[in-house]
């Protein structure tokens, strides 16, 4: 199964999750996702997701001037974002454990 297909559905959740404890800028968020094991995430996907979440009112942004290199636009969760993360996280957990059980019952292991 193509991971990119799965990612489409959960990228929102993944981005919200990596921003839960610490704000980050675009490329930093991509690095966090890859460090968490989501190697197939593309930069355009992260940028597009950030745009969409921001449009949906889940994120706050602010610009941090940089000594060397360009200014960085940081993204952080606002109240709506945290709420969204809670609900989506629950949905995913339930869904994932359902799938897990389904597969374990039939003797399939990761």
């Amino acid at each position, binding site marked *: 199964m193509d991971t990119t297909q799965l990612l*489409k559905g959960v*990228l929102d959740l993944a981005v919200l999750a990596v921003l839960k404890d610490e704000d980050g*800028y*675009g*490329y930093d968020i991509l690095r966090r996702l890859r460090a968490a094991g989501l190697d197939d995430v*593309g*930069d*355009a*996907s*992260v*940028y*597009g*997701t950030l*745009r*969409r979440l921001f*449009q949906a009112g889940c994120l706050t942004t602010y610009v941090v001037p940089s000594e060397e*290199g*360009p*200014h*960085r*636009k940081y993204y952080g969760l606002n109240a709506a974002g945290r709420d969204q993360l809670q609900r989506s996280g629950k949905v995913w957990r339930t869904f994932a454990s359902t799938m897990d059980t389904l597969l374990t019952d039939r003797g399939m292991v990761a």
Partner: protein
Amino acid sequence: MNEVADYVAQVRTALLDLPPDVRDELLEDLPEHLAEVAAEGEGSLTERLGPPAAYAVELRAAAGTPSGRRRQTTMDIRLRDAVQRARARLQVVDAKSGPLIGYRKGSDFIRLLRPAWWVARGYLVAMTLAEMNAHDSIGLLPRFDIGDPTVTGVVVLVAFVVGSIWLGRWQDRLARLPRLALVASIVLLCLPGITNLFGVDDDAVGSQFQQVSDYYNGDLDAVYVYDKQGQPLRDVVVFDENGREIGLAWPIVATPSPEPEPTEGIAPEPTESAGPEPTDSAAPEPTDSAAPEPTASGTPEPTPSATG
């Protein structure tokens, strides 16, 4: 950062089918974002992120923008497709026409003709300027009313042709848009010059004689001049409204005459019954009342040589 701007521009092009506000919103932060990306690692953006078109596809999917709009052609897309189709067709014509004249492509040959066009446009623009300046036809040289018009014409012609050649070599350095504007205005300036060429050609084909006979529906072959008594007038010169002699009058005095040939430029002074009467019996009988009616049944045929 030039690379970033270039990359963003190509992504934007790939998203042209989106409504402008959606597209702008989507691309709003992309320059800053890509600048961050570029600052954080090695290699060009294309190496690290893939081609801009692929980036646009991924962005479109991630941002939840409907990609099905691609077939819903907007005006932008339709125009772009039409231009691409026309360009492809032109390239086919270009490739096929070349071998006909012994070149790889038709445009290869046309490119060789560029200096010829520079010379031609120099002439045509000079003619346009001369024509705007002139009151009536100026012939084939750009004549101006300064000194000897013909000399001025040659000097102006040479100056414009040289200037046009110089401009032709220089205009390649211009950017695309200014160059197109320049060529378009030159072509516009050539149009009156081309019109003048047609006018000169028209004058060369039409002759005075035909124009005179046109007044008579083209039936005029000869002119016979009689006085009130019905006596043929000899040694008569006929003038038109401009004081120019009408050549048609010549053959009728071509009958044997002791008098010298009429000199040019003299107003006609018909002399009464001068010289011997033509013995030709075919001359019309004079009537009491009025001048002869050549168009009536008794058409005079004085001499077989009386041709126009």
